[in-house]
């Protein structure tokens, strides 16, 4: 079961951030609206060992909505357009 990645748009000035802020540093608003971030561009990727001891590919993804996130990379190489979703609280990206 996956769900969309949500990023947060300030209700006061429209600034979009991830994770969700508590106070907008630009306009002092404290209300934010969730915005789906379903697409992005994979900027860097690396391979490491995950907490379970298995290989883990991680990527830096610049979402079309604006914020840059760290995702588990299912497929893709730097420069690729990727789709984003969340599975069990983990952001995943795939080209």
């Amino acid at each position: 079961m996956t769900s969309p990645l949500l990023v947060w748009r300030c209700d006061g000035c429209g600034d979009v951030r991830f994770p969700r802020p508590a106070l907008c540093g630009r306009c002092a608003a404290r209300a934010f609206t969730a915005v789906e971030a379903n697409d992005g561009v994979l900027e860097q990727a690396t391979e490491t060992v995950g907490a379970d001891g298995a290989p883990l590919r991680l990527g830096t993804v610049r979402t079309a909505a604006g914020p840059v996130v760290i995702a588990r990379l299912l497929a893709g190489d730097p420069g690729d357009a990727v789709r984003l979703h969340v599975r069990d609280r983990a952001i995943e990206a795939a080209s």
Partner: protein
Amino acid sequence: MMTAHELSAFGGCGAAIVGAHEAAYTRHPREGDDTTAYLAEAVAGALADAGLAPADVDGLGVASFSLAPDHAIDLAWRLGLTVRWLMDDHSGGASAVNMLQHAVRAVEAGDARTIVLCAGDNLDRAAFRTLVERYNRATAEHLAPLGYTGPNALFAMLTQRYLDAHGLTRADLAAIPVAQRRWATGNPGAVYREPLCVEDVLGAPAVAPPLTRYDCVPVVAGADAVVVTADPGRGRRVRVRAIGALHNPDHQAGDGWSTGFAQVGERLWPAAGVRPEDVDAAFVYDDYPVMALAQVDELGLVPGHDRVRWLHETLLEGRWPLNTSGGQLSAGQAGAAGGMHGLVEAVRQLRGDAEGRQVACELALVTGYGMVLYRHGACHNAAVLERLG
């Protein structure tokens, strides 16, 4: 009535660092040596180095990831100290310079006369794992679910961004661990002391490409401490000419290698009354080679931002004194002590106590960097230190 030496009606006085000590770093802590024991060893050593006793101390600052559930006040009690000034700092690698800033101002204001600052950790494998996975809320909520085991992967990607942006190769950047390891051969306290060449760094087991084993700090148990006191006016001591800081400059939205250090430098050098080229040695926070390079560059030590030339000619061939202890990359990172390791080495160099690796050192730069909030560090600070006496 204020005397000529007093800076405030409360007996404030110019501050000086008069003692420094590092409790030996080890990858194999002895059973029963907890974090408090390492901090106590560092504090005792720094006081002895300063020629002072616990009864002389009236201020304590501590930075540690593993002192919990104890805090600075508990440590004061365990160390037998009664204090007028007390500080817990949780700024990771920036804690030491942050505490130094507050300690110097406290002495100048007359809030305390003799402050001990200490930092250290003994983190076993399980405690280290918990620390990195629950480092802050963002890590617990958005990185740990990925299977994240620590910031190596983040700085691997940051390193790739930096190499791409500045036309550097991995071999160019390898100059940092190679040059620092050369210094470590003269530091009995470093856990890695065997010389390295560029091929050794590039060919070492990958941690997270492009980073290999020698691009990552060895985790050790240990602690560091310094003593900041009202300037005694004699003896070998160190004065802080200027300190600057900047935290969360980019809200985690930037590239991570355009750091807060550029802005810190804009105020630091004028406040210190010296230029970057005047420093004899630099002790920058080297959690990763890329960050060490980013700091020296943004703080003005790389003429014309010609990084390749600086790495090969100045650092490698010229043996310019960068992190003469070997840095954390060779000496080890004892948790929160990482930020104080460079400060202790700077004080030793300035006071002529760096046997085996001593350089002529009258002016030094020390930096702190840390607290990876999500993608890269958020805390940046730097101090310009000078030798007195």
